[in-house]
């Protein structure tokens, strides 16, 4: 992982940790829907928090491709680059 993606993933992990019971391990490899037990709508709601945090909008087709925190971090990185 590139430094920037790693950093973004770490920020996402911190946001995930505020939403789940303490002690549940979360990492860049965590699968957002399966490991966190989120249904399709809950995933989209979670992504909204990520969007607010980074001040970007993530189009739905890009969310559909995301499985892990790391995948999401890559999408965020691309969108942040496009913004700059």
């Amino acid at each position, binding site marked *: 992982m590139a430094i920037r993606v790693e950093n973004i993933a770490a920020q996402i992990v911190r946001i995930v940790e505020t939403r789940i019971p303490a002690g549940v391990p979360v990492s860049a490899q965590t699968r957002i829907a399966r490991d966190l037990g989120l*249904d*399709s*709508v*809950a995933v*989209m*709601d979670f992504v*909204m928090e990520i969007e607010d945090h980074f*001040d*970007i*909008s*993530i*189009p*739905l*087709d890009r969310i559909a491709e995301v499985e892990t925190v790391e995948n999401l971090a890559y999408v965020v990185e691309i969108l942040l680059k496009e*913004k700059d």
Partner: protein
Amino acid sequence: MSIFSKFDHVRTAFRALDKSGRNPFGIRFDKVLSPTEAILEGRHILLFGTNNYLGLTFDRTCVEASVSAIYEAGTGTTGSRIANGTYAGHTVLEQQIAEFYGRRGAMVFTTGYQAILGLISTLAGRGDHLLIDADSHASIYDAGKLSAAEVIRFRHNDPQDLARRLRRLEGLPGSRIVVTEGLFSMLGDTAPLCEIAAVKREMGAYLIVDEAHSMGVLGKNGRGLAEAVGVEADVDFVVGTFSKSLGAIGGFAVSDLPDFDLLRVTCRPYMFTASLPPAVVASVTASLRRVATDNLLGTRVLANGRRLYRGLAQAGFDLGPEPGPIVAVKISDRELAIEFWNALIAAGIYVNLALPPATPGSQSLLRSSVSAAHTEMQIDRAVQIMADNGYRLGVLSSDLRIAVPAAE
């Protein structure tokens, strides 16, 4: 590995519903008797989950118009309007809808789902930006999938979030198309349409409002939320259905934009499906005439909605944010919601069970809708049965039990 393996998680949940008694997604009425009553398992049941807002499905004039149309024009059109031609009834209905909304153009679709799918996916092309309310109906999400545009979800009923997301698009080419609903189907809440219209004007976007649940119900003339809050001029496209207030099936879209007609030769869900059959066109024409000349039914369904909402609120249920024709009881526990729904069926009340992810906020809902055809006695009976079963099952806390006063 079966082709159905991808649905393993769905299978487990669906089969579990069988064990709960009746499967809510497979319920079968022996006979529907009227807009408010049916026979289920050999017993009378009161219908409180039909979206039959104006109660016109058995209206004598509509039924007779439908029957005559079958004799005159046959049972079906056997093809699409593009390939097989338009029947006179289609054109009459389109003129009638345009007139009802005071718009230049109207298009009729075979279902409400297709109207949404067709209108949105065709308008939002490659390079455009489609901004949809997070609690949008599945058809709006599906339209987004069919569209080549980028789809962005804004927080439910949050004009500031919409504005923020539109600002993020500044400098990018492409049209901005905002989609919201007059009345949201699950919780029955209305959109803050004045504020959304203001954002739309300021940021230069197009606005589509789905009035599927609000047509014939909201607004002095029954044109929906946009009429009720006075922002029709800001709504570029109204889309809706004939399957709820108008008691049949089909969908429509209206607009004042000059090239609206181009959709007839670009919109695939309009072009590549058979058109509405004469019987449906005739009953919708008759029911729309009724709605256009008499807003009594709209007044009555709203009064009925308030009565049900007040009764259930007084009983202590956790309800959607505002009274209206849709009244939803929120239940945090999915299994309890299923049990409660089954108990209501056994007690002679049919409501809709809605489970996540089809609901906002991962809540389970017992969603009911009222009709202008409901009597006050039927509504009070539904409140009483829901309250009794709510206490018995622990949906309502018995510590708080008070006699449910008769509404009004």
